[in-house]
């Protein structure tokens, strides 16, 4: 990384910065995580009997699975905020759009097993609709909906980003506009007429790809898939930020005019990373919905978008691994707090954010690094 290396004042021969994606130690850590996610957790949850200390409860598995989806969002936030300096409060929207894309498919998979025994999803029967609206055209096809999971957030991000970046909207103004767009999208999804189930959203899923969704093995399959996606995205993000492309992003964060006068078009760079970040969030949403079994417009609430930013800030911006740690730390704390002291969670979250901003500008990772340097 670009950390200051002590001792380089000795005239070392000039060499290119380390070209490798990860150091040897990081590769072994990564491999360990792959094994934990794809071997250890399934064994501990499915094979080890429930009375053993090594047994991992279903609750823990679904909680970790959920947090891994959040961690993908935090990683996506780090690319756009930590590395490029653009704070988006609209990532909740991209996450929810991906979730809705998957949710539409899952709703159609219910088939005639709903309360009304109709071909149409229950909420449409309730609204007395006779046929599927046009935007449900692909909802019977898994591949079709997966395409939408990628294309809808990607396309929306592209169009919005193009106009915002071309108009050179920056800083807090950009953040406010992303927040406003997210809020507008939430209001739109709340309405029954838009065909997304109104404030109830989608729930009561029964099957995925024809297989029952609520079985232990399906839960574990989704868990492993999410874990591997998170690790894959981490590697992809790492490749991006260690390339010259990533250094241009950081240069845009530090001095955008200088980037422009050096001959780079910041619009193209910002747009690329913005769309990549949005698509990552969409995929996270699509993995999230079958695991938690529900998607509704509250995922697009302004608070949801702000929380993603808090995970990134708490973990440590511009480090990739930090936001993942932050997502686990904050959401772990949240699940404990909301059981132990439900009414104090939001106060705690607010205080945490203030404390991190004041005392830990580089988040948890910054704290760990400082510890390491002291010893």
């Amino acid at each position, binding site marked *: 990384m*670009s950390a*200051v*290396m002590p001792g*380089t*004042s000795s*005239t070392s021969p*000039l*060499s*290119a*910065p380390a*070209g490798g994606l990860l150091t040897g130690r990081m590769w072994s850590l990564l491999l360990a995580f792959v094994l934990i996610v794809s071997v250890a957790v399934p064994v501990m949850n499915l094979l080890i009997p429930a009375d053993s200390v090594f047994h991992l409860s279903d609750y823990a598995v679904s909680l970790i699975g959920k947090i891994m989806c959040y961690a993908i969002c935090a990683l996506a936030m780090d690319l756009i905020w930590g590395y490029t300096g653009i704070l988006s409060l609209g990532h909740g929207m991209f996450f929810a759009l991906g979730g809705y894309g998957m949710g539409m498919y899952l709703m159609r998979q219910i088939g005639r097993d709903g309360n009304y025994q109709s071909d149409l999803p229950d909420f449409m029967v309730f609204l007395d609709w006779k046929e599927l609206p046009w935007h449900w055209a692909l909802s019977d096809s898994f591949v079709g909906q997966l395409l939408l999971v990628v294309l809808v957030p990607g396309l929306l991000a592209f169009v919005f980003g193009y106009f915002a970046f071309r108009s050179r909207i920056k800083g807090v103004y950009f953040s406010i506009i992303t927040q406003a767009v997210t809020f507008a999208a939430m209001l739109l999804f709340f309405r029954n007429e838009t065909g997304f189930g109104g404030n109830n959203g989608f729930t009561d899923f029964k099957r995925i790809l024809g297989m029952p969704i609520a079985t232990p093995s399906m839960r574990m399959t989704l868990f492993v898939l999410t874990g591997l996606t998170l690790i894959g995205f981490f590697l992809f993000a790492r490749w*991006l930020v260690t*390339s*010259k*492309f990533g*250094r*241009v992003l*950081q*240069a845009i*964060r*530090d*001095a955008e*005019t*200088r*980037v*422009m*006068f*050096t*001959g*780079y*078009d*910041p619009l*193209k*760079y910002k747009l*690329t990373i913005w769309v990549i970040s949005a698509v990552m969030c969409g995929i996270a949403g699509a993995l999230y919905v079958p695991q938690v079994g529900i998607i509704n417009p509250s995922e697009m609430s302004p608070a949801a978008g702000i929380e993603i930013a808090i995970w990134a800030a708490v973990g440590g911006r511009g480090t990739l691994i930090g936001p993942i740690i932050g997502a686990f730390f904050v959401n772990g704390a949240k699940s404990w707090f909301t059981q132990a002291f439900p009414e104090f969670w939001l106060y705690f979250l607010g205080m945490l954010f203030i404390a991190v901003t004041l005392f830990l500008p580089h988040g948890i990772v910054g704290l760990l690094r400082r510890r390491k340097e002291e010893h």
Partner: protein
Amino acid sequence: MTPDLMKAGAQTRIARESKATAVRSGGGEAAFMRRHEPGSLDLTHGQILYLEDITVSFDGFKALNALNLTISVGELRCIIGPNGAGKTTMMDVITGKTRPDLGRASFGATIDLLGLRENEIASIGIGRKFQKPTVFEQLSVFENLELALKANRGVRSSMFFRLNGEQLDRIGSMLTLIHLKDSAQRNAGLLSHGQKQWLEIGMLLMQDPKLLLLDEPVAGMTDEETERTAELFLSLEGNHSLVVVEHDMKFVGELMQNGRNGKKVTVLHEGSVLAEGLLSDVQANDKVVEVYLGR
């Protein structure tokens, strides 16, 4: 091979050669019969930059008022003038940051600068150094130079970019030139003010621009650093065209080398050219003394 084909081939060859000789007989570099590629820099008239009647107003205040200026190929031109004379605005116009209300600006004889964006202007060969040193503070000195290195600026080529040996050598010799070899792996934000100025100049040179615009390049430098900067600029003269805006008259004096080769200074005042000529003549000019030097 049929006779028809042979004949056709011969005709093509004749056509090609006659075209080539036509260009040559047109007189090499002269404008007559010379084919000009659109978008390429046309320096046949000996001038690299033309500003004609440039007027810029901000809320009624004319920052530039019908400014006329031409810079020759390989020239080192100093521009002086009191605060608010329009020096920085002029650079803004040339680099696309500000659009003038009136006037024409062209790079060489043919490239209209007013239709291009900042990054496009930088890509065709105009480099700019800001008044306040602007480097990428969180990146290392090496990485700063690497980003400035002349290479494809597209997103995809940046993703797959790898330095080759030749480029590494270029960065190495630039680090030596700007005396930052020992700081190559330090974050640029940790450099002293003068070192940042040098780094920014180094970044400009990595872009290999035809024309360099330098806004107060020695502000905040020690006397020794200033002297070295003057030497550097004088070594660039000839291969590059330089426009230097500066308040430090000692530095300007060093750059002008007592008017050797008829080197000119331009004095700006209230958005237009007040005087132009040898430094000694300008300094003796009554109008100049009145508005600027006499204070």
